[in-house]
């Protein structure tokens, strides 16, 4: 499968867990992924981990991008990953974006987060990453 054709099929949930209302980044990413040909479902703000996992399941998503700028990532991300696993979901690519201190990144990766994007990450880098990470999975 070439990158171009797989891009068109990728279904991504862009989610805003927690209470912070900083949605600039999430909306820019959602739009950039859409412009790159992906199917994007943006959850809107103030989502609980349960709501996000439900959206991932219902939308049969290939990937979920979690945007967190409140500092609550070490609470919210493990919760979301745990709920995904509880649903038997192992192959959805989980990425995190936002103000994430470098020290926290290895811990998030250990949980199963495929990539963490901090402020300044170019949108193309995120697009390329998703194309590659989703493409590498076992065929569903």
């Amino acid at each position, binding site marked *: 499968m070439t990158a171009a054709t797989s891009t068109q099929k990728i279904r991504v949930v862009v989610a805003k867990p*927690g*209470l*912070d*209302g*900083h*949605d*600039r980044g*999430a*909306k*820019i990413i*959602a*739009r*950039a992924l859409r412009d790159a040909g992906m199917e994007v479902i*943006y959850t*809107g*703000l*103030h989502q*609980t981990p349960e709501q996000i996992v439900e959206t991932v399941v219902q939308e049969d998503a290939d990937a979920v991008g979690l945007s967190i700028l*409140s*500092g*609550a990532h*070490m*609470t*919210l991300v493990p*919760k979301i990953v745990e709920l995904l696993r509880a649903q038997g979901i192992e192959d959805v690519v989980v990425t995190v974006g936002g*103000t994430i*201190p*470098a*020290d926290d990144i290895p811990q998030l990766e250990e949980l199963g987060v495929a990539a963490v994007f*901090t*402020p*300044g990450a*170019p*949108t*193309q880098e995120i697009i390329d990453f998703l194309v590659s990470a989703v493409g590498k999975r076992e065929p569903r």
Partner: protein
Amino acid sequence: MAKIPDDERSPEQLWREAFDATPQRDVPFTTLSGTPVEPLYTEADLAANAAEQIGLPGQYPFTRGVYPSMYRGRLWTMRQFAGFGSAEETNARFHYLLDHGQTGLSTAFDMPSLMGHDSDSPLSLGEVGREGVAVDTVEDMTTLYKGIDLGEVSVSMTINAPAAIMLAYYVVAAERQGVPPQQLAGTIQADILKEYIAQKEWCFPIDPAMRIMGDMIEWCSQQMPRWHPVSISGYHIREAGSTAAQELAFTLKDGLTYVEQAIERGLDVDDFAPRLSFFFNAQIDFFEEIAKYRAARRIWARELKESFGAKNPKSWLMRFHTQTAGVSLTAQQPLNNVVRTAIEALAGVLGGTQSLHTNSYDEALALPTEDAVRLALRTQQIIADETGVASTIDPLGGSYFVEALTDKIEAEAYEYFKKIDALGGMVAAVKANYPQREIADASYELQQEIDSGRRVVVGVNAFTEGDEGQTALHRSDPAMERGQVDRLNAVRAGRDSAAVEASLIKLREAAAREGANLMPLLLDCTRTDASEGEIVQALQEVFGNYTESPVF
């Protein structure tokens, strides 16, 4: 290219020819907001009525500043926004800032407090005390300002959807110090429209939220003569990705909408307009920002005087707080942010700000450390006391470029006013997602410029070598959340539950009644130690909640 005696060409023509003959750098000469910038501005760029438009400081239309003396009389208030963890921890930071020469306080609340959730709500998990201080009851508010004379220091509180509740807490906390509301000086943000536009922290649908805000403004106009009951904020609109003109237009239109609402409620414009204040962003495009502040003063003065017929000259004054742009800070090479912040702060000062918050260089990474906060404050002190820029009023007044840019941004704001009016006013425009969409488009365009390298961000898409890596970061104490929940439970255990319930029932009844002012009832709830979450839930039973249909 000296002019030869029989040369008919004007000096301007000669300059243009010489300029055109010179190769130019291959970069877009536009402002951060995308406005084209000419290579040179001259007298020809000034408006025909420039003398009148520019005017003098302290005189209508106030382009050069709201006061006749500006910083010759008194420097701007150095007001660093602070808040994290518990009320006790933030109180210690306040004492630290006051001890280091800060002249006013500014309070940041945590996300649960901003959204009207108690610290023990499942929705608050992981957010308690993270981005600001956790305040659940009047007990926390009392601790927050312990040892600080609220009759003396001016206090700003950044909270919006539950602003009326927090103001009630503050009034009762002051009452416990023996300070009556009439003596309290400060500002509560309470700008609800920009929440739906940009900041996105809400508790209720737009219409009841506008009513609660109106109740608070009305109550303050009667009880708190030294208080600014709203800080009409462009800051968050800009942070969400707007252009400078959008920040200006949407903010002023929000403000004009609050004026209309207060007049509709029967208030005299001169009874409350002098207490309205503003809050703008200081982005990195130096001259564009300065022009924005100058245009803002002129528009506000004109609208209040001409459109609303305000007679008191104080009603015409647009006084504002400035904060340097959080979004301009980069996680890469964080020390570069010291420089960005200094330049942005200088723009705020040259734009005539009344108070200023300078961001700390580590804020793209985490909440600021104490050292970073001190450096940010020192940045203001260097601008104030070393650079000499505060020695003369509006030093850029009369600059061809700055005046032309001021006129341009003013005209752009009026274009937006027209579009918003055509949609039925700001409330209708917000409900139709109009400003939200404009901002999303602007932020996407800017991101594309950065991604393509057309717009340089040093350390991010250019000059990326030599990232100094990790800087010491503020870490939240994980035990904090539990401690806050314990304190809340202790308050709940010690209060008269029947009195709490009775006060909440009365609040609900009043909320369901058109025309009842909710402020006195919120004060009653506060005195029974009702928590913020309980009060918000009681109101939501009547008003419902708000769900956004996001545009991107």
